[in-house]
């Protein structure tokens, strides 16, 4: 009896993303068996690497009961920094470091306003996002974005064996994040706040500081995602769709991390893969944009309902 209870508990801990991915894989396998090989699936995975990296930060923030809507602005801004030509003379390493520090500072600003100032995370990160986009618009007026240094592009197209380098990078980064969450004190703090912030406070967890740090890391991840995104486009742009941020929230939740549920990396990781595969399946089936929007909305909704019902039966 106890055993069975444990088993069902374990079964319920499987994030919905795993099930969705399985369904999608089976669907694809039935429709196009020729697509089922590592090289091809790896290529599909490469398409969502920027999203995947943003999710690595988003899951930290969401499970600390906050949210980060500023990833789009960071990506746009970093893309502009690289492609505007302002830094063409700089060694590439400095450019990368500068970009990362931009993400870090934006994240820190978000974190301080949310954690210390206790302003609403939705509005703060939204406003920061607007300011970053506005900044790019302003700068692009004087100097529109141009080309991206070739090294970025070459890195993006690199392959190790059959696997594209960005996918390996993403996987390694996810592994690092997983290790970071699982093996550092910070991870314990995030888990604690996710589970019960008041208990966390009484256990001596520095709640405010943890929220600040979670936002800072999220900002850093946005900058890393921006580097990958910029390498993939290889040219500057002045606009960035809002889908990425919304999808990052959706993938995180699909991966079993909800506001106040302990963070884990692989569920959301698989959630991002779901987005990649969903796109492939729909394109293969010839489903157009409206159908895609509806299907994606329904999948997220059903997964969330599944989770909502679960948390109810647990409490």
């Amino acid at each position, binding site marked *: 009896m106890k055993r069975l209870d*444990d088993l069902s*508990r374990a079964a319920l801990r499987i994030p919905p993303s795993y099930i969705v991915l399985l369904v999608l894989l089976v669907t694809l396998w039935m429709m196009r068996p020729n697509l089922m090989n590592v090289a091809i699936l790896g290529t599909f995975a490469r398409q969502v690497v920027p999203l995947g990296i943003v999710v690595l930060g988003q899951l930290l923030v969401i499970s600390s009961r906050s949210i980060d809507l500023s990833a789009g602005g960071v990506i746009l801004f970093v893309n502009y920094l690289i492609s505007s030509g302002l830094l063409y003379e700089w060694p590439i390493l400095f450019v990368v470091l500068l970009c990362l520090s931009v993400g870090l500072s934006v994240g820190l600003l978000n974190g301080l306003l949310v954690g210390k100032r206790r302003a609403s995370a939705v509005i703060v990160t939204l406003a920061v996002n607007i300011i970053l986009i506005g900044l790019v618009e302003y700068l692009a007026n004087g100097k529109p974005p141009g080309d991206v240094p070739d090294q970025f592009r070459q890195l993006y197209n690199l392959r190790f064996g059959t696997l594209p380098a960005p996918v390996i990078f993403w996987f390694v980064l996810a592994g690092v994040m997983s290790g970071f969450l699982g093996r*550092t*004190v910070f991870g314990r703090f995030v888990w*604690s706040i996710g*589970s019960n912030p*008041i*208990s966390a406070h009484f256990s001596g967890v520095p709640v405010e500081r943890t929220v600040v*740090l979670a936002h800072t890391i999220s900002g850093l991840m946005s900058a890393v995602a921006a580097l990958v995104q910029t390498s993939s486009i290889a040219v500057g742009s002045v606009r960035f769709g809002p889908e990425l941020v919304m999808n990052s929230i959706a993938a995180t939740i699909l991966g079993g991390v909800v506001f106040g549920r*302990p963070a884990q990396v692989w569920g959301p990781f698989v959630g991002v893969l779901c987005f990649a595969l969903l796109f492939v399946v729909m394109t293969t089936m010839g489903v157009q944009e409206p159908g895609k929007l509806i299907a994606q909305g329904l999948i997220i909704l059903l997964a969330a309902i599944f989770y909502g019902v679960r948390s109810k039966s647990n409490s």
Partner: protein
Amino acid sequence: MTVQPLVQMTSISKTFGGIAALENVDFQLLPGSVHALMGENGAGKSTLMKILAGVIQPDGGMIRKNGQIVRFVSPREALDAGVSTVFQEHSLLPNLSIAENMYLGKEPVTKFGVTDTAWMERKAKEILSELGLKLDPATLVGNLSIAERQFVEIARGISARADVVILDEPTAALNAADVEVLNAQILALTKQQKAVVYISHRMEEIFKICDTITVLKDGRNVDCVPVSAIRPKQLIAMMVGRELSELFPPRSNRTEGEVVLSIEGLRLTPDATPSSIMLRRGEIVALAGLEGQGQRELVRSLVGQYTPHGGKVAVRGREFAFPLSGELGIREMQALGLGFVPEDRKLEGLFLDLSLAHNLTIGLHSRHFELKPASAHREVIANSMKSLSIKASRPSLPVNALSGGNQQKVLLGRYLALGADILIIEEPTRGVDVGAKAEIYKLLRDYANAGGSVVVLSRETLELIGLCDRLYVIHDKHVVTEMPAESATEHAILEAALHS
């Protein structure tokens, strides 16, 4: 006795998590009566009244209202049937005005369907002024003081046009003058043949305004007597008088240790009498007294969770002035070796969906910088599980799969694992069965014998007497007396508290 009772409760039983809070309790309320419900902390008074008010449902028994069998599944239903309640917990909504709080759920509307704010405020003002209050009914409750809120709750309960009004410790936050005003209101109610249930620990109030007393002990009826037939001493004897069970480990004979914690001149409210408390190495000290007298505020002041008005604290020689910072309070104290174990295990203590291992070690992790690797602390976990005899199949089990007693041990274990040499514990055995209680008592005694010091706060006076070395009796936001536990009795403590 031809008068039909307004309320007749028969054989009411209620169990919380395997522990019986009420067993076959009878209670009867006659019109025009002020009925005192007496008993120790935890005797079941509040539970019984919550059942009558529809807040919780009984496991067994029957309630008749005016002779009809009723079953209240919500406070709303109880109110509609004429049972109005003023609870100890503040149930007012801070973002609504006084008038809105008083009429919420039954707001009058004008003929245009607009809520009649003017009417509500006029009425509220009338009721408030009858209670001698000059509050603007448009004020937000969030801006009121605790006593003012208490009065608004009373006003709300009284104005509900109910024929049964339950007042659960209405005077806990009130001063003597306020109490007079309240008593006048209660008399007015009885003149209208309404009935009042009055729960209070203030003996003089009981004997002044009540006519009947029902005494509960350990969730059972003791007696129901007219006030005229009983004296205060007899009443206290009825409430207490339990055997000192063998639950408690023997006190050790030890020499006086050095003072590890001392509080001086602490004033909980601006006009409260200053209190001083000290704790020696190797001893367990209790903060005893009736509920809501300031014990909680006192210990929470130590970790920055309550803002007192002056005084200072020294922890092993390091002095701090009150108030302490909220965010840093807990962490600073932990760094000094002081652990605070909060009362509400589920809301403030444990991470229910996280593993036992996480719950045990989070305190240890909190001492480190975020980026430091989190050691697995396997030994700590194994030792804790063994020394606390936590019954769980494996450390990765989420704690909500454990029993209440084991959960409590995990919570204690967290602070023990910290190596804290001072523990401040609120309600160490709340919702815990007898076996686990004994284990926890032994644990704390062993801890003290090993050189630790403990401050305990509990609603169960008996527990404090059995467990501790020394007691401070707290009343009206300050320490009224100090006594050694060995010679203390429930009687003495109650008297010390009530005679102030």
